[in-house]
């Protein structure tokens, strides 16, 4: 495992800027999650590190060595692709053994057998080892493809939404499993996801990308509690942060144009009146959709609340975020 540094990495595809001056340090043994909507540059960042695409300018350092111009094999990285990555002409066992048999690793047959069965055990695919790769369900294929990365001991694991095609149960199992593997082996991971639960639970660091730029990089807690902009604040937290005009409550700073309120920043029972529009009971919590001065607010309340549609709830902000007209955080 190794520390990975991106230094002013830029990449264009035709006229589209995919990445612009992205600098990032991925510490050894860290689990870095990249967040951002489609087209933000998450996958491109991954491909720059892997060497599958060549960067236009800047450089990438793996373990202190500049790797610009090196092939993926020379960089010794493992990638889990979002789809299509199992070799359809090979069995599951052969798929898992494929990287170990590469001229890069040249593993002995006994060692291959040991590692393959170990990984198959972890990913619960031992009984499918002799199946053709194409005879698996989507979830099984994705587990094999994660397994193909895990059999190796690369400088860094690069994973592109590896859990997105799995069902909820398996996804949460594998989330825990990946986190455990990472913690036990001290592996370095760069992980792309849309799923903020994955980001919050697994990441040691989160990078927020917006239109090819890295807008914030820090621990999930830091990004959740101290976002630099409306954009970064909207990446984490469920329900999403409420963004309202700043003057809707008293006490906004002069140059503030909007106020950001997470559920825990909304105190219920005091302040101004709002109307309950709907009540969503999720079991462990209940979401309240409120109507306040012609704006919608979503917040969380007691799971066993007796509130009903049409009831009046008093609300007031507690140390909210203020943002300027460009969406940047005011501190």
């Amino acid at each position, binding site marked *: 495992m190794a520390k990975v540094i991106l230094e002013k990495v830029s990449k264009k595809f035709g006229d589209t800027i995919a990445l612009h001056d992205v600098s990032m340090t991925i510490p050894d043994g860290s689990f870095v999650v990249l967040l951002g909507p489609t087209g933000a540059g998450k996958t491109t960042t991954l491909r720059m590190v892997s060497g599958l695409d060549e960067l236009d300018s800047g450089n990438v350092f793996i373990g202190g060595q500049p790797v610009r111009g090196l092939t*993926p*094999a020379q960089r*010794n*990285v493992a990638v889990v692709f979002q*789809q299509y990555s199992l070799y359809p002409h090979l069995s599951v066992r052969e798929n898992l053994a494929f990287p170990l048999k590469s001229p890069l690793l040249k593993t002995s047959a006994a060692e291959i057998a040991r590692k393959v069965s170990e990984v198959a055990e972890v990913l619960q695919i031992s009984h499918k080892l002799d199946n053709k790769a194409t005879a698996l369900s989507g979830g099984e294929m994705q587990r094999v493809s994660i397994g193909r990365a895990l059999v190796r001991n690369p400088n860094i694991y690069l994973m592109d939404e590896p859990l997105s095609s799995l069902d909820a149960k398996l996804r949460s199992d594998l989330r825990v499993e990946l986190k455990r593997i990472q913690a036990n082996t001290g592996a370095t991971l760069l992980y792309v996801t849309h799923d903020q639960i994955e980001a919050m639970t697994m990441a040691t660091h989160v990078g927020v990308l917006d239109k090819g730029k890295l807008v914030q990089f820090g621990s999930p807690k830091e990004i959740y509690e101290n976002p630099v902009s409306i954009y970064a604040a909207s990446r984490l937290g469920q329900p999403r942060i409420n963004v309202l005009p700043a003057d809707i409550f008293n006490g906004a700073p002069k140059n503030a144009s909007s106020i950001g309120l997470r559920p825990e920043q909304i105190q219920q029972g005091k302040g101004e009146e709002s109307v309950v529009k709907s009540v969503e009971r999720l079991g462990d919590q209940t979401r309240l959709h409120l109507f306040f001065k012609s704006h919608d607010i979503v917040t969380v309340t007691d799971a066993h609340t007796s509130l009903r549609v049409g009831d009046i709830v008093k609300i007031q902000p507690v140390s909210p975020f203020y943002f300027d007209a460009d969406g940047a955080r005011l501190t």
Partner: protein
Amino acid sequence: MSNFSATEPSSRQKWVAGTLVILYAVITMLPLLWIIATGFKSPSDSIAYPPKVMFEPTLEGYVNLFTTRTRATPEILEKLGEPATWYDRIVRQYNMVISGPSRYLERFFNSVIIGFGSTFFAIVLGTLAAYAFSRFKVPLKDDLLFFILSTRMMPPIAVAIPIFLMFRQLGLNDTHAGMILLYTAINLSLAVWLIHGFIDEIPIEYEEAALVDGYTRFQAFYKVVLPQASTGIASTAIFCLIFAWNEYALAVLLTSGTAQTAPPFIPTIIGVGGQDWPAVAAGATIFLMPVMIFTVLLRKHLLRGITFGAVRK
């Protein structure tokens, strides 16, 4: 309504469909069967009118195909005594003796060398070119591909005379190398286009996975792309072989002695002492075998290859 199902045809429908398929198979197979049967007829049976469907099989045609014979006087025949082998006996009925082997085997092996050789080169070069067109940024890619296709837009025989003159200058007339070169060149455009289509259908992610799994691009091509393109490559190989194997016009023009293939040779068999149709048929039957075996061996690929690309994903 329940008599008609979209998925399961009724037994009568199956029966009709089966009959039609068998009928069609018989009609298309009939000329082939006639050739094979003629190979086992005697010369007089082969030209009998009305044609004989039932006849006494003989290996005369095959003996005549593989031997050259001379007529002998009764004195010489007497001196030779009893014929030593079964094929001597067949020839002796016509007061002939075997004077040596014919050139058929030689021509047949010329066909094997030239047919399989040119198929091999067309497939190797075609696969590499198709891979490059499919995966790399090739300048003027579309124009180049169109140019390659355009070489197939006229019948090859149209350029036979320039090729003949060029071959004469280069000393390639009537050589194996010359014929392999020629058939490779003709087949290459077909090979590039067909295989290009097959490789385009293989997602690039497989190769990328192999690249990060520690393989070089060539190893990824060899270990991941080739096995998946095998269907397309096999069917392309069959098309190339069938062309090179059957080619007649250029073979007549460009070969005579050493490198002559079987197609120009087979018609000449008939000229030796009367109309020897059984020998011609025997030659044609043996000539059919290699392509038939090759196709049967690769039939699984061929069928999948022909239907390939019919369904867009």
